């Protein structure tokens, strides 16, 4: 068997395994079963790492990037199709996807360029509120998603001067203060619904109402969340392509240079301000678009959705996945959104356990689950 054939088989096998895992994980509700499944998965991964299987697999994957991307999309479609009639799993899957888009945005800032942003939820929220305000007007809703991103980028530009002038902890405080300010402002401001929040009309594309179930025939009626899942999947793919293209282009090189050593980068004639502004604005744009779609899907938003703790969740996803690692972000978003949801039995103890797990991960695997690899001169030649 040739190398490439073997690779292809491995990838298909992995995709099948991943699909089966996702379906089981989302479907089971019994707490003991969930724990058992997680333990088995963790044991498998540890064992695989021990015997060098992970390394082999990752080499195999990096050789066949296109096939891998296709396999992942196919796997997600299979999972989505499996739950075609079940509203809640689809809602969760769509939520994960929107978190992924927002975290891609943060990744551009934290992971690529090293610009800190602790107000991710605020920019996500700007997107949400844009959708709520523009939803009732005659602006086409697909445009509203883009406008959500643009609004986030524009409002974010208020922070450009302080963000550019500061570094490290000082920059962190700028964004933390902005996040708190944003939420307090929404709470005391009556015209935007105040603490009561706002209703958001659902997505409607060329007469296709996203908020009614899809009736295919007498017996087959798909959940209306399927609409949002598909749209979110398209957006994730677009965002992923954008992120990858930027990462591998000269723009990404500049980003890396700015992150790794500002002084050296400046010596080589790289305009640090320009790249920081680019990353900050683009990142906020992505978070805003995700927010706009999220608001349409949820149908209701309120300031308490965009608290400091929500920004922290976004940051912890980026860190957990591995700075700048796109696949890591996807995996981490899935874990962070789904796990607390799945572990409802431990209700009051959820946050405690979540925090403890995060501490353990940061102590023992500070580089994240799937750390970003070194830049490869030619993709696929890493092995």
């Amino acid at each position, binding site marked *: 068997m040739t190398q490439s054939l073997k690779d292809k088989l491995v990838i298909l096998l992995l995709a099948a395994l991943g699909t089966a895992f996702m379906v089981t994980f989302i479907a089971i509700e019994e707490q003991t079963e969930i724990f058992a499944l997680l333990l088995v998965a963790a044991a498998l991964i540890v064992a695989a790492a021990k015997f060098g299987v992970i390394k082999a697999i990752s080499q195999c994957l990096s050789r066949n990037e296109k096939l891998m991307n296709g396999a992942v999309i196919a796997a997600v479609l299979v999972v989505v199709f499996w739950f075609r009639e079940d509203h809640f799993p689809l809602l969760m899957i769509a939520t994960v996807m929107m978190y992924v888009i927002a975290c891609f945005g943060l990744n551009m800032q934290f992971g690529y360029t090293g610009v800190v942003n602790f107000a991710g939820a605020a920019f996500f929220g700007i997107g949400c509120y844009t959708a709520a305000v523009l939803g009732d007007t005659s602006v086409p809703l697909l445009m509203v998603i883009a406008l959500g991103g643009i609004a986030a980028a524009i409002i974010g530009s208020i922070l450009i001067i302080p963000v550019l002038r500061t570094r490290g902890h000082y920059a962190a405080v700028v964004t933390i*203060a902005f996040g708190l300010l944003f939420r307090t402002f929404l709470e*005391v401001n009556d015209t935007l619904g105040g603490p009561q929040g706002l209703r958001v009309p659902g997505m409607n594309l060329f007469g296709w109402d996203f908020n009614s179930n899809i009736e295919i025939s007498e017996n087959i009626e798909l959940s209306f969340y399927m609409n949002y899942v598909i749209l979110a999947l398209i957006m994730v793919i677009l965002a992923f392509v954008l992120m990858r293209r930027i990462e591998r282009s000269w723009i990404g090189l500049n980003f890396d240079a700015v992150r790794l050593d500002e002084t050296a980068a400046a010596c080589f004639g790289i305009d640090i301000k320009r790249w920081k502004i680019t990353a900050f604005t683009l990142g906020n744009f992505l978070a805003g678009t995700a927010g706009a779609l999220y608001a349409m899907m949820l149908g209701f938003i309120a300031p308490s959705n965009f608290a400091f703790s929500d920004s922290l969740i976004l940051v912890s996803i980026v860190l957990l996945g591995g700075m700048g690692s796109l696949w890591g972000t996807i995996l981490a978003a899935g874990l962070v959104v789904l796990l607390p949801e799945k572990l409802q039995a431990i209700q009051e103890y959820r946050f405690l356990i979540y925090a*403890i797990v995060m501490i353990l991960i940061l102590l023992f695997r500070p580089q994240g689950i799937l750390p970003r690899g070194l830049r490869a001169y030619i993709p696929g030649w890493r092995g």
Partner: protein
Amino acid sequence: MDVGLLGQFVVNGMMLGMMYALVAVGFTLFFGVLDVIKFSHGDVLMVGTFAGFSTYLGLTAIGIDNAFVQLVGVLVVSIASMALLGAIIARYLVLPLKSAPPLNTLLVTLMLGTVLRESIRLFYPDGSNPKHFPSLLPTDAWSFGSFTLRADSVILLIGGLLVIIGVNVLINRTRLGLAIRAVAQDEETAKCMGINFKMIVLLTFALGSGVAAFAGVMNGLYYNEINFGMGLLLGVIGFSAAIVGGLGNIYGAILGGFLFAGLQTLGAVALPFASAYKDVFAFAVIIALIAWRPTGLIAEKTSERV
């Protein structure tokens, strides 16, 4: 506005500023020795207050009801236990991450804050409800027109001031302080001079956490109410105050603390719009100040090594 009312606002603002400053001093101490932000600081303060509260309950239970003895007991237990907790946090969570990116330390301590907060809420008896913190100080009040001054407020203000002066003397006038300053300036050189780096870091964290515990008890005595969430906002404000003042500088922390309290009071009193906007106002000014002075009002004296 009449003078009495103005006086009242000034005293209120000073009380707030004192508490913020005490919290900010902790942030600045930790940053000085290790260049890290320990975000669980506010929650350590909260745990310290609960430790003090438990001591009070314990003392009352065994029949000691002299307010002065109780106060001393509360302070000693609270400060000592938080100093220990601070050292433990430094030893097992902060030092191991010394070589990791600063963001990791920030997140670890943020998560630790959640753990502390949730633990009190879940495991302290009836922890999710606010508790009545006893008044252990004399409550005599003097009224001058619309200005009411209470003995306990005065004692707390003086107490806070003494603690700040004490910390300042400790840092600037003692051998331990010299060692702390040495470590803050240059870890390697300090080690060469025979300073036990690890010990100094642990002691600094103990000191900062002890000060936080004092601020927590002060908070309890002043508001007579404590709850599991009280540390969160105090932590964020203390952090902002330390940053605005300039990290690594005690005077900066004090300045930042009083500045933030002043902004909040001003926002509530003097601005034309609703007082609910006072935090929006305070944080907006903070952002503007940082844009103006990117390394704080009293800037860090460092030259960058390339």
